[in-house]
């Protein structure tokens, strides 16, 4: 039971990391203005 719960937490955290990595890559590879637009 706990295994499924911790696995769900790991999936959520991994998805969050991927999302932030994606935003980071978008921002760093484009101008600050467009990145801020995406972030906002």
């Amino acid at each position, binding site marked *: 039971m706990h295994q499924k719960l911790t696995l769900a937490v790991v999936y959520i955290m991994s998805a969050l*990391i991927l999302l932030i990595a994606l935003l980071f890559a978008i921002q760093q590879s484009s101008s600050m203005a467009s990145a801020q637009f995406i972030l906002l």
Partner: protein
Amino acid sequence: MKKIFQPLQERTKRTIQGSLWALLYIILTVGPLLLTMFIGPSLPGREFWREFSVALGFAGLALMTLQFVLTARFQPVKEPFGSDIIYLFHRQISTASLLFILAHPLILFIIDPSTLQLLNVLSAPWRARMAVTSVIAVMLLGITAIWRKELKIEYDTWRLSHGFLATLGVGGAFGHILLVNHYTSIPWKRALWIGYAFFWIGLLAYTRIYKPWMEMRKSYRIEEVITERGDSWTLVLIPDGHSTMKFQPGQFAWITVHMNPFQHVEHPFSMSSSAENRDTISFTIKELGDFTASVKNLKEGEKVYIDGPHGALTIDRYPDMEEFVFIAGGVGVTPIISILRTMADRNDQRPVHFFYGNRDWESITFREEIAELEQKLNLTMVHVLENPPENWQGEVGFLTPEILDKYLPMERRKLQYFICGPEPMMDAVENALQKLDIPMAMVRTERFSLG
């Protein structure tokens, strides 16, 4: 009102503590990326996939560094979750961390095949050598952790190599980041990653030097080795000129014999003695593997070192719970016998239902003592035997939902459950409790397959 409210308050407190730790964990993982995004000065932009691979590398390294926190056995970190869940999370999140770290070079190789030349460590610059060392160490770490049994690696050898490879992997990655010097060229970002590196070195010093040193100062000696039923032995330890470690009944500790604590060859076992016994401390160990097979040959007077107590499988976490259910298989009885002995010493008359699965009647560890405890405590025993003797009137086979359903009281959803035993038995019992609609929050387990 108080009796219902108090446990909820305890649970709420632990839930809040756990949530705060989880939040801090996420912040420390993605914090460097977010800071780089929001705080300038910005660096000249590079192509999307290169930046994406760098972000995954940073996040993977931060996650890997935090594994040292998870496995350092810090009491405040363990408290809301219990060691069981911490190690479970460590195994799962490490896999994610490994995938992020591997994705970093793989993406670079795909977008720019010329970077493959950096794999030649003879001609590559030091930043690439560091990266190759780190990635190889992390890959070996993952392979040996996931397939340790299939690769037939002894537990002690694996633990030593696990610590060494993790150190090499993280150390190499920090060296790589600082030598590449792209994001770390800005002073505050360099300071941030140097800070991470120092934090990690501090954790290493704590686990590798400070903790073993503290263990050395509080050693124990073997007073007696008692043969128990079910191929088990009880080690009775006496403190070497200091007071006995205080623990809560049902908890476990890591013990080191034959070696000193700096060698990090230690094994986790539950205390089997009463928590009220301040003179000696006992561990009951079943012969299952290389180390456990040597326990019967230990001699009186030999030195033992203890790191503990650990674990959340204890009634002391639930002071206002009115009724308990213990479910044990084989030597999984050790934390339970500690709890029962403690309850007897405390004259704790709260109702207890104890389901105890064993191979046969003769191999029931602590059989006679449990029968005596039935007279002293408000204890309902249910023995379940795979191979029962002739004329056996009790339950036969394994612990099934039907057996649990037959003996559990109607108010079963409000009881606190503790399960300890072999992995397949614990999985089966957890599923059985789910079928009986027992809330997961009321079930506490202790699994010792920590590797």
